[in-house]
């Protein structure tokens, strides 16, 4: 019986260890009243400090969507974000490396040039935008966000209302991006694909932090090393709670 239990635990552990690369994402969230950059999936708030050098670019935007300085800073076991003024938006570009694997084997951080027998090789970029302040105009396509989720209408005040989003690839609406509504609380949800105009309409799930997650495969720019570029994007925003 004990052996069976051990086998089950091992199988579960293997499943977790071999989670698809696109399952993990970056997003912004509050930690002890500070804005932090989170790397993980679901309730797993993983080691962003270890991956600090993967942060290629971080930018804040004021209410007029003009860029302002935003600087990631290691603070103990987490990565905080310092801005030179109160931001309306935050964005990040996070390069998660080139990974390959053979069949269902474990992912290795190599390109096909180093692992010629690989059946899959991908280059992985993760993008994120957080809405930090009140909006009075639509969120624009941000030049450094190759993949970006933008709200296509006003953000409702309460959960349960519908909201249409548009997924942009290189600034233009893209069909076929796979999007889930709640990366934190429902990470295994079946993704919905964006329509021809790049839109998808979903119900806002949380009276609190909402983190949507989109995945889109872009064409390779180095076919000898990887088959495609796996782009993931998150959009985070908060619906305030009622008085306590």
């Amino acid at each position, binding site marked *: 019986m004990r052996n069976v239990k051990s086998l089950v635990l091992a199988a579960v552990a293997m499943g977790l260890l071999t989670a698809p690369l696109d399952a993990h994402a970056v997003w912004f969230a*509050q930690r002890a*009243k*500070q*804005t932090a950059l989170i790397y993980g999936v679901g309730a797993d708030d993983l080691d962003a400090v270890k991956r600090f050098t993967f942060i290629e670019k971080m930018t804040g935007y*004021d*209410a*007029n969507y*003009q860029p302002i300085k935003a600087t990631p*800073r290691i*603070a103990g076991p987490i990565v*905080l974000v*310092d*801005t*030179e*003024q*109160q*931001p*309306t938006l935050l964005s990040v570009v996070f390069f998660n490396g080139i990974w390959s694997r053979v069949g269902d084997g474990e992912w290795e951080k190599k390109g096909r040039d180093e692992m010629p027998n690989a059946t899959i090789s991908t280059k992985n970029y993760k993008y994120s935008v957080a*809405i*930090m*302040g*009140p*909006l*009075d*105009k639509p969120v624009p396509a941000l030049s450094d966000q190759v993949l970006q989720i933008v709200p296509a*209408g*006003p*953000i*409702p*005040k309460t959960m349960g209302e519908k909201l249409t989003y548009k997924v942009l690839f290189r600034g233009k609406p893209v069909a076929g991006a796979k999007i889930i509504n709640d990366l934190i609380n429902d990470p295994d949800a079946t993704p919905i694909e964006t329509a021809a105009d790049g839109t998808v309409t979903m119900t806002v799930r949380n009276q609190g932090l909402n983190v949507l997650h989109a995945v889109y495969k872009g064409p390779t720019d180095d076919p000898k090393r990887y088959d495609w570029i796996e782009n993931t994007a998150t959009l985070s925003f*908060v619906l*305030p*709670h*009622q*008085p*306590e």
Partner: protein
Amino acid sequence: MKAHVHAMLIAVAAFGASPSLAHGSTQPKHGGIVSLSGETLFELVTAPTGVQLYVVDDDDPVDAAKMTAQLSLDTAGKTQNVVLAPAAGNRFDGPALQLKSGDKVGVLVIDKASQAHLGTTFAIK
């Protein structure tokens, strides 16, 4: 379009401004407007002689001398940054500002020792 923009403004004006009585009073004490971000209450007072910002953290007044404060006034598509000077108690002072409906005032207060950032945005109605 106007209604759409108005709805969008109303919908998100509460960012960082959810009332939370568990963390102390959310009423203005100096005749200004207030915004609550988590457990930090910001009160902005505009007067012909200057602007004042009061900061209360979990019902405790902060020590302005240990912090820096800055306002970012967004009006008609332009942003103006205003550095405030620490004043008595939890008050920060700055030059007079002419605020009108539709403006937004970002507030960023930084603890000099811990580098903790506290902030909110006022949407002027």
